């Protein structure tokens, strides 16, 4: 088990619709919370990594702007992008730099102001989330791709629309108690099933809530972490994988290979198994994505994911609580900030600071963060 790098500070802004401020001010909210959490100031930071999905940014090369605004000049700054997994890709870079002995500590900041562009512009960009040569000409968009995975999962395993609704109902029960969540209402199975179909079988309430938001993580070597922090949370294992951008290159449409590759690597590095995980944050951009994550992470055998949610095993008190902060579905999905927010949730859980969302006695936590429709997969295992 690796315990060379720790997370010593975490923060996130509230996830909201239509943030009334600039991206620099949005970023500052998460940064300030994480720095105060770590008890350090900008001059203590040796490098910064900034993540966002640039198609939503009006500002070109935002890392330069952020380094300046957050008081991180003249230290080096690095811009990373892997769509929805940008901030955990940032964590990867920070981890690698610390492990290589280059910089220590390193701050990772993810942000997205999705309302920075008009909804017409946003719709236009969504059509280009796929291979623009061979798939976008058919009118593709994210819900359609995940819908094809849902259809594939239904056909192979007998999963139903009700099973997916149960996942959304769970998300809303925790989104309701998370003050930083964008979607605070509770939903019933009936409400989910009656919502309009976006791309069959996925309906409006199977889709995550878009939001503006920022997240921040401060990483340090184990030695430095002990010096600075009374409550470091260690990176025990880290894994990353990819799969083809085009659907024609996929082996199956009922799971995400990039997640399986990443999970295997992370479990091996940590010397742990799925049964060792006490609490998990998975990338539920759509309900079917959480269902596939149960199986791809080994929380359930392939095809048995539905049993987990039917038996409420992914609620607090169940075998493996998942997304007990509301997840992307209810907490919200500000693309570049999402992974860092997932990590923050797990760090708070492992410190016993998650309040009403606390999983009692959680010692080992896992983050699963996916970019695009399973193009990029990052899995991180954390422990005290």
């Amino acid at each position, binding site marked *: 088990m690796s315990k060379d790098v720790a997370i010593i500070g975490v923060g996130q802004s509230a996830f909201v619709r239509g943030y009334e401020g600039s991206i620099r001010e949005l970023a500052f909210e998460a940064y300030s919370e994480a720095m105060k959490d770590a008890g350090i100031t900008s001059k203590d930071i040796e490098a910064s990594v900034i993540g966002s999905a640039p198609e939503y940014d009006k500002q070109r090369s935002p890392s330069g702007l952020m380094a300046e605004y957050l008081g991180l000049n003249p230290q080096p700054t690095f811009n990373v992008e892997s769509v929805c997994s940008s901030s955990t890709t940032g964590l990867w870079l920070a981890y690698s730099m610390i492990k290589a002995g280059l910089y220590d500590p390193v701050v990772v900041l993810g942000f997205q102001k999705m309302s920075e562009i008009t909804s017409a512009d946003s719709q236009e960009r969504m059509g280009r989330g796929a291979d623009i040569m061979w798939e976008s000409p058919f009118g593709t968009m994210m819900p359609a791709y995940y819908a094809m995975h849902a259809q594939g999962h239904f056909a192979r395993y007998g999963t139903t629309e009700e099973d997916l609704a149960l996942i959304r109902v769970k998300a809303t029960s925790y989104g309701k108690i998370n003050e930083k969540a964008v979607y605070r209402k509770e939903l019933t199975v009936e409400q989910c099933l009656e919502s309009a179909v976006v*791309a069959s079988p996925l309906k409006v309430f199977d889709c995550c809530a878009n939001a503006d938001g920022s997240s921040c993580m401060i990483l340090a070597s184990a030695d430095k972490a002990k010096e600075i922090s009374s409550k470091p949370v260690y990176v025990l294992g880290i894994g990353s994988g990819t799969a083809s951008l085009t659907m024609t290159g996929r082996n199956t449409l009922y799971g995400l290979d990039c997640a399986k590759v990443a999970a295997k690597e992370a479990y091996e590095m940590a010397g742990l198994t799925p049964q060792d995980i006490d609490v998990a944050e998975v990338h539920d951009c759509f309900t079917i994505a959480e269902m596939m994550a149960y199986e791809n992470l080994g929380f359930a055998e392939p095809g048995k994911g539905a049993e987990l949610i039917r038996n409420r095993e992914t609620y607090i008190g169940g075998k493996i609580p998942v997304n007990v902060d509301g997840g992307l579905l209810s907490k919200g999905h500000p693309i570049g900030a999402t992974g860092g927010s997932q990590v923050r949730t797990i760090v708070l859980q492992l410190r016993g600071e998650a309040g009403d969302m606390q999983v009692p006695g959680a010692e080992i936590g896992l983050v699963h963060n996916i970019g695009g429709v399973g193009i990029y997969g990052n899995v991180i295992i954390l422990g005290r």
Partner: protein
Amino acid sequence: MGFEKFGQISFTAQSKVGDDFVDYLEKGELRGTKCTKCGTTFFPPCAECSNCLSEEMEWIKIEGTGNLISFTEVNYGPTGFENDVPYILALVDFDGVKVFGRFSKDVSTEKLAVGASAKAETVTYEDGQVGYQFLPA
């Protein structure tokens, strides 16, 4: 130039395989490529082989009956496709060569199931754009 003729809305005008691909579509043929050195097949067609780095490719026909891997009926389209909905997107496996596309507008989802047979045909749209679409087989 030439590839801008592909699909309802093209986002790419230039590709080494674009002109030939469109020419074949206009002749009623859907084609992918095959590396003449190592035999790897590609759909979408590629001008180069990522397996052996050869640039010697030949065009192969995609024909016959395929197997429907998955599909979805889209009710909300991205920019440019808003008035085109609903339409059915699908992935069909033609004996190991997978093809992504749409079903013909005449087909309803009730007629479709994962694992069912499907075939591809080329199509010319009202505005002169060319493409291909799936039909139940």
